[in-house]
């Protein structure tokens, strides 16, 4: 979608900023905010670029660098840790040959560690984009990743 189309869905009040940034980032095929996104948002809300830059860098879900097409967020909090999330993280790194914060060679995935995802009832858990996966076992991972092109 065009940037202007997205911005049209939102009013001009500052309170729309975070929702706008989410929408622009979700619209980007590399899951990040480009300079032009920030400029367009600044224009739309009539606030400064530097203000938006400050906001973007504050929140962990926004990225100013290109990321993979799909974002894997794996929980690194205590409940998942007790259920051996560290083994899962090791396995993911191996399957996709990437480290935390990196993009897979085919650009399909980025791997990020996250604090508690609120799915401790099904620990260890992870999210890929907006999909939730819990009670993870090493053996399940490859077929889960298959679903994301």
């Amino acid at each position, binding site marked *: 979608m065009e940037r202007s189309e997205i911005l049209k869905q939102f009013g001009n009040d*500052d309170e*729309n900023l*975070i929702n706008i940034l989410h929408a622009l980032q979700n619209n980007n095929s590399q899951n990040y905010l480009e300079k032009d996104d920030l400029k367009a948002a600044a224009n739309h809300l009539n606030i400064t670029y530097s203000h938006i830059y400050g906001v973007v860098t504050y929140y962990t879900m926004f990225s100013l660098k290109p990321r993979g097409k799909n974002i894997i967020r794996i929980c690194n909090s*205590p409940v998942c840790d007790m259920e051996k999330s560290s083994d899962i993280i090791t396995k993911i790194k191996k399957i996709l040959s990437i480290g935390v914060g990196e993009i897979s060679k085919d650009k399909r995935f980025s791997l990020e560690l996250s604090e*508690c995802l609120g799915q401790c009832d*099904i620990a260890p858990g992870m999210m890929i984009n907006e999909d939730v996966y819990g009670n993870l076992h090493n053996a399940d991972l490859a077929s889960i990743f298959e679903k994301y092109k």
Partner: protein
Amino acid sequence: MNIKKLIKEASAEWSDLLNGPVPAFLVGNATCGRSAGAGDIIEKLKTEISSGEHKCRVLEVGCIGMCFLEPIVSVYRPGYPLIVYGKVEEKDVVKMIEAFLNKGEIITENIIGVVGPNEQINLPDLFSIPIMKPQKRLVLNNCGIIDPTNLNHYIANKGYTGLQEALQRSSQDVIERLKESGLRGRGGAGFPTWRKWQFCKDQDNDTKYLICNADEGDPGAFMNRSLLEGDPHSLIEGMVIAGYAIGASMGYIYCRAEYPLALERLRLAISQAEEKNLLGNDIMGSGINFKLKVKEGAGAFVCGEETALIASIEGERGMPRPRPPFPAISGLWKNPTIINNVESLVSVARILQNEPGWFSKYGTKESKGTKTFALVGKVKNTGLIEVPMGTTLREIIYDIGGGVDDGKQLKAVQTGGPSGGCVPASMIDIPVDYESLAEAGTIMGSGGLVVMDEDNCMVDVAKFFIDFAHKESCGECAPCRLGTKQMLAILEDIVAGKGTMEDLDLLEDLGKGIMKGSLCGLGQTAPNPVLTTLRYFGDEYIEHIQNKRCPAKVCRDLKYYEILEDKCTGCHICFKACPVAAISGNPKDLHKIDQELCIKCGMCLDKCPVKFSAIEVYPGNKVMED
């Protein structure tokens, strides 16, 4: 539209579901159900039904709380109670349709319990089974029972009658009802809800705001998520009532972006409520206006703190602001603002839906009503529970939770996330209420209960929480930013076997200083997990420092692996598994681990065949000893 007409329509639909001629399958499709494969079950049901001879409905419901038994499928068939099955697989679905719908035979395998009159079939009542019996579902009563995407289901179960009740009274009367109920904030601090509302109502200001805090970020907590996914209209009803009471005509729900399903359900519920004039202008002809907007977070834990949350909605970096002024006086865009937790607001709807005295008859003298908890960690029955305030931790862990996993020993219960602390096993007879938990050095918090067993190292747990606080500290005030960093550095030394006894005093002093000097609740409570573990598990710290031993065998530098002479058969599997070639030995000979080279990854232990079990972990450090 007239509420009476809405109720009539809704009741007709609900009673058709319960007693009508068409059977219905209810599939738990909240986050826990989805992850256990509810999606496939729904698909299977739909294809089976479309190809079979029976007309039948498939509905999606929220989480009934027994996440460890997902996927959960319940069946309504005319003349029978609701029968609830757990751990259902696709093949069971075919059997259920075949036996129950076609032949009227009940499959008793995997039944958790039944809901409703059931003289003729004599199956356990769902709410009387051991997991459910100590629970009182005042807040979660609809979760897993109604279809959260169907407004009629909510209305047929007393939904929006609380709002109707409120609108017929003065706003001061509503606040009095809250006062009588004894409700205290469920977001952590436990401040009496009515008092906060009264401050805001008494402000002479045309514009006021109500905000629902759905930023739930405490590690180990997911109560609000389940509630939003399973019963979103309850929150909306509670918010309209609250808005009316304090005089706000605009409300915001600030929900973390990590909860996509909750966000989807909320947005749908808002549009449904607007359509039926339960939200918007001139609500139900009362002349009262109240609008709702949803705002997403973006992955900053501190935004759960009320002033940071306000900054975030305003489009700023979500950093806390000094209090006073309190938001009730000067909050969103400097207008009087009330911020309440999801569970607090749902409780408000329930309180108004029922007669005075209903809520306050549960709980203790100072802590009324019930509290939802996320029961997780090393406990058999993980899930979402709701108990009257004053229930003991023992009842929660053993009666509801079924005890510790794998027959291990209970060591501690962590409550209140990074702001709370660890209650040792010896103290689990304390009742869960605001005062008793505070006395034990922890807090009620928002409701995460993480059960820990003998395999958990309390120093490591404390280190995790300080690391969390340090990462999530917004950096605005020095005590929190630098203090948590320093505490983390000390704990890292201790778990690496480099700690000194003076470190323990330093941790305590630093902790107390950070609590006094920090700007917001994050820093003011961040040292709690360290201070409570020092208080109750001081010996474990000392073991780490003086004897270089981690008794729970968690801390890498303070444990070691050894091959047992009498068990090793020389199968050579560990030799191949070791990533650093620390294991020596020829096939069929005794193998040995070089302690200098070993990185304690545990691969050898994992790979050693169970029938040999020739590798043991011991607390201590061979290299440092020598």
